[in-house]
């Protein structure tokens, strides 16, 4: 794009460069903050994931045992009865401009419950272990989602920082240099013209 080498353009470009420098610093700070937060979240996610994997595996084994110890009809009846009702609250919080969902679950027993004779002891153990696991699963869902969203935001912010650092700021610097050189050249030409005129008059 051709640049108009005028004082007005020089002032405008200088203003843009100052603004770009400020934006660059702010975005760099944001990126660093996001990275710190991201590392904390990933560490939590790793620990939580290991715990959940272990508990889930144990819980599913309990359910396999429970299914094996019960009649298939009883299992089907239980599934159709659904003895628990789940309700989930989803709230959103903002973390450095990123909207993150947080989940909270509540499990309520329904009025219609299967009789004691219809369920096995293994099923009670399995259900108890699953109910311990459920809040952890939701916590993990929150943490992993946060990590995902923060990673996206870090990527975007990093691109913006790089665009400012390696494209816009050097371009503005070059433009300022070019305008200054042109203005200096014009000034020198004006002096030369004045001197030539003076010489002719004298």
């Amino acid at each position: 794009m051709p640049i108009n080498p005028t004082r007005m353009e020089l002032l405008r470009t200088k203003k843009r460069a100052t603004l770009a420098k400020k934006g660059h610093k702010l975005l760099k700070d944001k990126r660093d903050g996001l990275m710190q937060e991201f590392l904390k979240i990933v560490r939590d996610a790793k620990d939580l994931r290991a715990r959940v994997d272990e508990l889930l595996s144990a819980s599913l084994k309990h359910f396999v045992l429970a299914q094996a110890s019960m009649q298939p009809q009883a299992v089907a009846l239980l599934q159709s009865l659904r003895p628990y009702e789940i309700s989930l609250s989803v709230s959103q919080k903002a973390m450095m401009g990123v909207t993150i969902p947080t989940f909270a679950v509540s499990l309520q027993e329904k009025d219609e419950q299967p009789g004691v004779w219809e369920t096995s002891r293994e099923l009670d153990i399995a259900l108890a272990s699953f109910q311990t696991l459920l809040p952890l699963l939701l916590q993990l869902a929150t943490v992993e989602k946060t990590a995902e969203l923060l990673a996206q935001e870090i990527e975007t912010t990093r691109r913006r920082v790089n665009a400012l650092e390696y494209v816009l700021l050097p371009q503005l610097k070059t433009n300022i240099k070019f305008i200054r050189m042109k203005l200096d050249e014009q000034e020198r030409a004006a002096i030369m013209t004045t001197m030539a005129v003076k010489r002719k008059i004298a």
Partner: protein
Amino acid sequence: MNQTSSPIAYIGPVGAGLGFSLSGIHVEETADPSLALKYLRQWKQEGVYSIIFIDEGLADPNLESIRTLNEDALPSIMLLPNPSNPKHTAARNLQQLMIRAIGSDIFAS
């Protein structure tokens, strides 16, 4: 704060969803990964579920599509390990996320 009436769903292999269904979670059992992906797409479009658990064996062939579906704040699609055939896909996902964000997996040892 939003309250959703049928908020959580699980997609897993046949016979693995008993714990989820007894706890009031909507369960779809299938052995077909493409059908699992179809459910995910449909639920995402309808906006019915806030959290969708999916067995990693079913998720493994469709990871790229699941990553795209999981880009928005909701729903949160979470991979669950299959105890009979653990693939550690979720752990690998977390690793890739780190590489995407930071450039390397600094927790790898």
